[in-house]
């Protein structure tokens, strides 16, 4: 039973880590921010956002804390841990390698 995903799993992780590098935010905001920054090109499936957040948390790359949101509602804020920052660096490097390689191939043809 395959589920439709707009983003490859690894990419979603990268996007979440990158977004959280800007500062702690809750899940809904992470989705919105990705959409905004990408000029509405990247639509994060809300159904896969939370499992991804939880998975990253389980791996110790992000940390979750309960706090009050801008309109005074209790929300779960995610922030990058130090391990997460390192991880983001690794992911970025490998993404650049990959996209550069793809660009080379695409332009050569």
């Amino acid at each position, binding site marked *: 039973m395959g589920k439709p995903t707009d983003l490859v799993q690894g990419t979603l992780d990268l996007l979440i880590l990158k977004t959280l590098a800007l500062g702690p935010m*809750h*899940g*809904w905001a992470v989705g919105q921010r990705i959409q905004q920054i990408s000029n509405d090109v990247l639509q994060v*499936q*809300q*159904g*896969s956002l*939370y*499992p*991804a957040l*939880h*998975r990253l*948390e*389980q*791996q*110790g*790359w992000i*940390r979750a804390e*309960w706090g009050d*949101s801008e309109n005074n*509602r*209790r*929300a*779960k804020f995610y922030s990058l*841990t*130090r*391990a997460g920052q390192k991880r983001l660096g690794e992911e970025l490097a490998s993404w650049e390698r990959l996209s550069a390689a793809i660009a080379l191939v695409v332009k050569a043809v």
Partner: protein
Amino acid sequence: MRWLDILQLRLRTLLDRGSLDRELDDEVRHHLELETERNLARGMTPEQARAAACRAIGGMAHVQEECRDARGFRYLEDLAQDVRYAARAMRRSPGIAAVAVASLALGIGANTAVFSLINTIMLKSLPVAHPEQLIQLTRIYGNSVGGSFSYPLLQQLQKETGDAVDLAASSRRGSARVGPPGTADTEQATLETVTGEYFNVLGATAALGRTIQPDDNRLPNGSPVAVLGYRYWRQRFASDPAILGQTLVVADVPYIVIGVAQPEFFGVEVGNRTDVWVPLAATPQRKWLLQMGFNFLGVIGRLKPGVSMAQVRAQSDLVLTRMNARQVFKARDPRQRQQLLEQHIGAKPAATGFSRLRDQFSEPLRVLMAIVAGVLLIACSNIANLQLARASAREREIGVRLAIGAGRLRLVRQLLTESVLLSLAGGLCGVAVAWWGCRALLHFVPDLGTPLSVDLQPDARVLAFTLSVSIVSGILFGLGPALRSTRGGLDVALKSERGVGHNRARRRLGRTLIAAQAALSMLLLVASGLFIRTLMKLEAVDLGFDSSHVLTFGINVLAGPNPPQQNELIGRVVERAQSIPGVIAASYAFCGGYGPGGWTTDVHAEGYTPRDDESISFDASRVGPRYFETMGIPLVAGRDFTGRDDDKAPKVVAVNQSMARHFFGTQNPLGRRVRFELQSGTVEAEIVGLVKDVRHHGARKGSAAWLYTPYLQGAGPWPDFTVRAAGAPGAMISALRRDLPAVQARLQVTDPQTLDEEVGSSLARERMVASISGFFGVIALLLASIGVYGTMAYNVTRRTAEVGIRMTLGARQGEMVWMILREALLLVAAGVLIGAAVASAATRSIASMLFGLHPGDLTTMTLAAAAMLAVALAAGYLPARRAASVDPMRALRCE
């Protein structure tokens, strides 16, 4: 830091699942609120906004489920949930659970019991350092593999293989009287005489003092020192350390106690704990130590690093061949020459020590293991059937769960958890069954002359065995039903209302299980039938003597008298025994009793020339006056020996019918002359008695030609005594113990035993296998009948409506009974046929344990099949009867 975070999270996952789930709820709800607000801001109505938000996230339950999956200990979490669920399910139907646990407890318990015996007798290593380096050497000739060694051979081996292996030897002397000097305070203890290297080679140390060392075993006299077994020291001397340096009289020889062995060390023979060790050279045996033909030593060795067992075997073989070559020239008997030439050295790993028990019981134990495994399989298939029936009751539940998105694997896992939980509960109860079962099993193991001490403490290996058997059987009986009942989807589940032809696949599995059960039960019944009939045939064998009313015993005297006084003393013992009221006759014999071992001598008959390749060595006994009368051996012709057949009288002998036939064919043997060898030289004697063949060596051995010579003609080794009583022979024991010591000071009656007991204990192995396999055969039958009954009862409820319709249409009750019964009978009959086919092949492997029967014995097969079918008929009849007697109106209404 990261790991600490992760650890904390995972622990929370495990321990605080409830609040994690609540947080997840809050988080998703918060998201929905924000999304709804955004939608409102875009100008949707509140309902539209909410619906759009829900659509966007795509099923709240789904998201939550995926988030849970992302948690680290998802599997454990599920397991805990499944276990709780399974426990609830078991509580809901305690009857079914109880039946399942009970039959599993029986199955697993029986397996554990047999396995722990196998473990103790066959698998456990000796409690010494590096037991894997230990090897046992044996002399192999012909069919005999356990041949022991003479001391000169051992010494030669030690000299020539010293680079490869350290050799030591010991001889078990059985019971000996042990006590402080000068007192009557003696008691029997087990004695082992050892070479000086024994403790060092085994790596056994002393808990107190020191062990026996090579210097203690120097010929001619050795040092009179003794080492005590730890347990013996504790029991007999209350762990008194002052025992060191004290003198102890062991078998009439004084020794100084120099040490106590380490606590767990029991010697090298499993099941036979040694109480006292003394050096060989310090025992009266030393007189014979240097004789080449005196083979009495068990040899054990420790391999040097890097040396293989095969190397040692090859080297030792050369030594043996060379030493035997010298003897071949001296041997006159062609059979003896042949034996010498054929001898080889065998070597086998001895990490687990020696064991007569093992030699005797490893084959039966293996067979029993197979039998109890079969019982467990039958129990498993029974429970599989139960689970199948339960699964049908839960069909809708499972269907609905599949429909709302539960993965099939997940459901199978949950159903399996239920099964394994059941089987673990069964295993736990099984340990209790095994504890009792082990003792029951030991009950069948015969006393081998010394008290049996088998340590049955369950060790890690036994517990691991029980655990894995439990889990495997849980999966075994759970997997089929679990896969089967999760196969369909909601449509199948909801459509399959009760009715004809519903869920064929599951019924097919149920029927296969019944047939398989019947086949297995058939196999077990045939096996146990063969063992029981073997025992019956062995017991029916005419041994040639009348064992009822006969008691045998030994006489122990201090300071053995010389031959003239010896015969006189024996005469007085017999006279005294005969004067006891209730004793009809008393006699004695050397090698004239019942059991293994014996004396052979070369016999030539007047007028008979043996062929060149013919053996002239025959079994023989030296027997006292009235021996044949006392033993109840029928005289065919001639006379019994009397007290007048002594050294002064003309030499006489008696022969059995086989010997008479061998030498004289159909002619009358009485009055013919034979020549034979005694220690004192060649004797020529006249045959004065002809007796019936006696199977001295047991029912399995055929009757051999046998020579009986009068004990009083020529010196003989000390004999065993026999009395024939008017009443129960066991009742004579106390009278003998009371009256016989009056004959001479410090005379003891030892090992009194009725001949019936001796005959009985020689069949101990057969009796054990027959009783236990018979017991489990009955259990198998019982389990199979429960299986048939259960399936039939289930089928009947399923077919109540059909029966109702048929009866309304005019079917008779008898027809209905037959309709239902036929199914059961056909299944069982198919199983019986398969079982019979398998049995006729499988029982070939136990052919050597049978007697007077072929493996595929037709009578046994027929009886087993009849029993199986009868049980199926009985188990199927009740439910069939109930179905047929149902009121048609009621049957139709339950549609």
